[in-house]
């Protein structure tokens, strides 16, 4: 079956522009997670959705970051007024049981 998909796979933008990153979770998975991975670094938790609700937004690094999930499926992570330090790989993951978590391939964001 299809796994978690993310788009775009790569995004280059200019400092100050807004970007939207999309995640399509595995069908039927109620939990959805966003993480950020800087070059050669670990995984930084950003936000978690259960259905369309986000009970844990504690990882969002600033108010420039926001995320939404509609229909209990697709999620969008939006970064406003991008900064160079936002350059990273943004990973989306989904889970049916909150245990086995399946990751997408990531979106590589480069802010010039």
């Amino acid at each position, binding site marked *: 079956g299809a796994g978690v998909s993310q788009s775009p796979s790569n995004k280059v933008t200019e400092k100050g522009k807004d970007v939207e990153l999309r995640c399509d979770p595995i069908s039927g998975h109620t939990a959805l*997670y966003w993480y950020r991975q800087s070059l050669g670094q*670990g995984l930084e938790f950003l936000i978690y959705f259960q259905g369309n609700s986000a009970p844990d937004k504690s990882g969002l690094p600033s108010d420039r970051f926001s995320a939404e999930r509609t229909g209990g499926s697709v999620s969008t992570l939006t970064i406003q007024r991008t900064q160079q330090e936002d350059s990273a790989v943004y990973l989306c993951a989904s889970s049916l049981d909150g245990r*086995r978590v*399946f990751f997408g391939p990531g979106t590589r964001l480069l802010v010039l």
Partner: protein
Amino acid sequence: QQQVKQSPQSLIVQKGGISIINCAYENTAFDYFPWYQQFPGKGPALLIAIRPDVSEKKEGRFTISFNKSAKQFSLHIMDSQPGDSATYFCAAGNMLTFGGGTRLMVKP
């Protein structure tokens, strides 16, 4: 606050050797401890996981050892192969608090 500490940051092992990666956690409420494997350009993939009611779990060449009293768990890769060269992450809890990762290189 880093709730899961992983070591070493990098590891070089000869083919056929044993690779050992360690993690320590702080939150005793954690009840699920997975290991993920990540190849360059790919997302992490679940490798093996353990619950705190068992002390060891083995799947093929991969074994997790769990020490609840010490709040530590480790990944052992037996008969390490060049194809095992990847970055390994431990994690804990429902929200998947991740360790900092270990970059493993297995030399032929």
